[in-house]
């Protein structure tokens, strides 16, 4: 489905995750952050950039791996993106919600 984000029509799935990363830009990220009641600081952006890079490298994202990344520890990750940080951060970053393996 299409959603109007930061004045642009963007493809998203039922949960609001972007389905085409090419449509993502910083203004889209900022708008999505606002929806999650988050004011993006430089620290947020460092984490978001890291997640996008990992996604491009096809690394499966997990809270554990992020905690060991050296970019951010889990406590700070929660402070930056409260409640469900991985779900929130990936949505803002314009990448798919991580599928936990089964």
């Amino acid at each position, binding site marked *: 489905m299409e959603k109007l984000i930061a004045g642009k029509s963007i493809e998203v799935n039922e949960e609001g995750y972007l389905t085409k990363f090419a449509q993502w830009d910083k203004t889209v990220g900022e708008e999505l952050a606002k929806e999650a009641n988050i004011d993006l600081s430089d620290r947020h952006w460092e984490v978001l950039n890291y997640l996008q890079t990992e996604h491009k490298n096809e690394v*499966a994202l*997990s*809270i*554990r*791996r992020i905690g*060991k990344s050296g970019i951010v520890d*889990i*406590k700070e*990750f*929660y402070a930056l993106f*409260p*409640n*469900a*940080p991985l*779900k929130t951060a990936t949505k803002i970053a314009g990448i798919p919600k991580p*599928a*936990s*393996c*089964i």
Partner: protein
Amino acid sequence: MKRIVILGAGTAGTMMANHLRHELDKEDWEIQIIDEREEHHYQPGYLFLPFDIYSPEDIIKSIKEFIPKGVKLLTAKIDQVIAEKNMVLLQNGDQLHYNVLIVATGAKIAPEEIPGMKGSEWQKSVFDFYTFEGSLALRNKLREWEGGKLVVHITEMPIKCPVAPLEFAFLADSFFKHKKMRDKVEITYVTPLSGAFTKPKATEALEHLLSEKNIQIESDFAIAEVNNETKQIIDYGGRAIDFDLLVTVPTNKGDALMERSGLGDDLNYIPTNKATLQSLKYENMFVLGDASNIPASKAGSVAHFEAEILTENILHYINGEPLKEEFDGHANCFIETGNGKALLIDFNYTHEPVEGTFPFPGIGPMRLLKESRMNHMGKLAFRWIYWNVLLKGTHIPFVSATMQESGKNFN
């Protein structure tokens, strides 16, 4: 004489020993299987032991009993795999060269990963049921427990048998009802996932059952610590959940041997091709069961389906032929829902569990994703099948290694 070495004589390793001895000429191929233990445990039985449904004798047999003639069983601790030299180093200093290595060392719990989990309350009010010792200690606790807050908890994914903690919660509900003390027990299911399960349709069905059985669910809970003084589990966001009895599934990890050998990822699982089961790094190394990092369930049924496909691939490899990219992540799991009923789910990498009939399309007799007594009978019968059919590498009639799409209601 060439040699195949199998590491681990659990479900996966034992099945491979049986398959390969059947397929390979004894004149050409020696097969050795190594395990440090002497007992083979029927791990699905750990779920039933706490509720006095199974006794220890139902769960434990000797490894020896299931290793076929013509396969050499070595009871020894493995120190290291030196893959560059095609060599296994044992702790007693012996060296074993191989032409083909099969790794089936499984996964284990690692409660030490979470601060406080293996603290002063361990096996007093904090239990696991993924080990025989844990499950037995929990049985003894449940025999005497007078009620309170029972928290069933998953630390992080992936875990062996991802449905087992749900089954534990369902069986607990049933157990306390039979003891006429359900009103004294508050059951909460705490998971790092966003819902009861990893796949949407099964999640819906299972959450319905949870609410029907008055089991609360707390999702998206990434545990930071267990507080032994206040008896709480606390997540990274500061959310705290009180318990009187915590039944947790700790972090699962591959064998520490992988770390010593430089073969594993950050959880000691070996990077493996998910369709061929060949190691991504060494072409004469194959991995099956819980030891690999493939995105399939860590479950005996998966190891069973893998073993059929891996046997073919090892024959291809030995004959210098290309490997078949055939494994589809097929898993088939009974989910005990209490009161003599169970659900059955059948799925693979690309198809989530849905409703339908199994194994005969349109007929059954088992129903997919629906509670039934027949499914429960299937689960109990499975223990017999495990010991008498599955471990011996005998094909289970009508159940194919790859998932069957007919008889399932996809849409």
